[in-house]
């Protein structure tokens, strides 16, 4: 029979492990943020070539999959909404529902999840591989801070590119919604646009884009952090890639819930 004391010890061990993880994440976030700030003050110290490289891999290379996912999301959302609200003769509300949902929530969220799978995992794998091949050690003996060298270019690239991808995703998602409106309800484009403009405030668009900036920060931070925490064997890289994606999506959804509430409260104050 298992000794109850063992279980208590196990719980204690887990608590300590969790504490280690949290401490490591917090100090990593601090380190990267300091390096970002240093980059703003001394732009010459930024690794421009790497920055452009990651701009390309995080941005243009991700456009096709972003368009596909966002369009499908718009279609699915519009279809489900249409089936329900048609029963109540609320067709004219549909463009508002679609627009608000996509701009405020689904657009930024889906684009961020796609970017986690594409870029966040790639960051973890890249840094994890560098750890195993002693490249991180080599950086440190050269007196180069790995955060400045490896994380900052990725971070800037993501901070620029994810909002742009989100704008694309928003647009394509709404276009997908319109396709459904037209085929199911025969709604003409000018009507759809008018109803959308009436129901969807510009601030919702801005809210979504701001969220995507936060998501970019989370994706890069988590991906790189997991990379640096990679163990010392080759299987460890796979493990940290997986956990980068899982951890990042978890943080994104939590943050999204928090931000949704925050923005709603903020709009309430505005009246």
């Amino acid at each position, binding site marked *: 029979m298992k000794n109850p004391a063992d279980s208590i010890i196990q719980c204690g061990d887990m608590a300590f492990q969790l504490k280690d993880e949290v401490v490591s994440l917090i100090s990593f976030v601090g380190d990267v943020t300091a390096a970002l700030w240093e980059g703003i003050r001394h732009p010459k110290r930024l690794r421009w070539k790497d920055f452009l490289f990651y701009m390309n891999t995080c941005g243009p290379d991700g456009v096709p999959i972003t368009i596909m996912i966002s369009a499908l999301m718009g279609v699915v959302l519009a279809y489900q909404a249409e089936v329900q609200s048609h029963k109540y003769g609320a067709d004219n509300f549909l463009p508002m529902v679609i627009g608000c949902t996509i701009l405020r929530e689904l657009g930024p969220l889906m684009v961020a999840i796609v970017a986690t799978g594409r870029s966040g995992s790639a960051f973890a794998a890249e840094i994890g*591989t560098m750890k195993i*091949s*002693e490249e991180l*050690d*080599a950086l440190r*003996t*050269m*007196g*180069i801070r790995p955060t400045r060298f490896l994380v900052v270019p990725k971070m800037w690239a993501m901070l620029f590119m994810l909002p742009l991808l989100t704008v694309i995703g928003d647009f394509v998602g709404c276009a997908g919604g319109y396709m459904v409106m037209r085929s199911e309800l025969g709604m003409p484009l000018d009507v759809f646009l008018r109803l959308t403009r009436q129901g969807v405030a510009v601030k919702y668009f801005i809210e979504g884009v701001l969220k995507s900036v936060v998501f970019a920060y989370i994706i890069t931070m988590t991906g790189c952090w997991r990379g640096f925490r990679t163990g010392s064997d080759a299987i460890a890289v796979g493990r940290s890639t997986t956990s980068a994606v899982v951890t990042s999506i978890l943080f994104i959804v939590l943050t999204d819930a928090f931000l949704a509430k925050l923005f709603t409260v903020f709009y309430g104050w505005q009246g």
Partner: protein
Amino acid sequence: MADNNAANPAPAAIEVRDLSIGYGSRVVLDNLNFRIEPGQIVTILGGSGCGKSTLLKHIIGLYKPLRGDILINGRSIVTADEQEKRSIMSEFGVAYQGGALFRSLNLAENIALPMEELTNWTRAEIRKRVSEKLALVHLNGFEKYMPSDLSGGMIKRAAFARALALDPKLLFFDEPSAGLDPLTSDMLDKVILEIREKTHATIMMVTHELPSIFRVSDRVIMLSAEKKGIVDDGSPAYLRDHSADEYVRTFLSRGGTYKSNSTEPDHA
């Protein structure tokens, strides 16, 4: 250790005191003590997995030891704060066992990186020095090659060249010639001796190449996994003839009179 300092006023290039190192709670090497004088070329010998790379990585300050102290020119790298540690590390040149070239940079950029990051040299000056270092290891002409397009031996030589980038005072080579053909390996030996001649650098290296050990090393420190420590320490020729340890004698005299069954340690 105060009397030790009094007898030797000039600090050792590397001094290791009561050092225990390992990973987590696992001790790999226990209670090491040695000093390496400036300008010495020291070879660390020992079976695979006995902790040679681990020792090197602790001495260059990548890991914190479990116990004990490591002094570089009299300054402790163990207790140094971040800034002092960086200043100590700036005198190191390291070639890692697997090369550790940066995959996203081509050969020339790899060797230029420490120069770009740590000096104020102009682009032209850097370019000149990069081709100097590449010529040293016979890699000129490969500047634009990415590490993934180089052979294992070329990567080793490139890593060697990168370690020399800033003409450091302390050089660490982890198996620089493992897997190289004998001629290339001879060439690296020649480069090592030239460096010592020119810059009086202190060199600590891990290698199993006997000819290389006898040609360049002033001293051999033999480690053992069973003892978790130093088995013997002395000049290669002296250890070959007079070591109290059977394995050390056998290993070092393997050279000319190689007998496959005599390379196994008797006590293993």
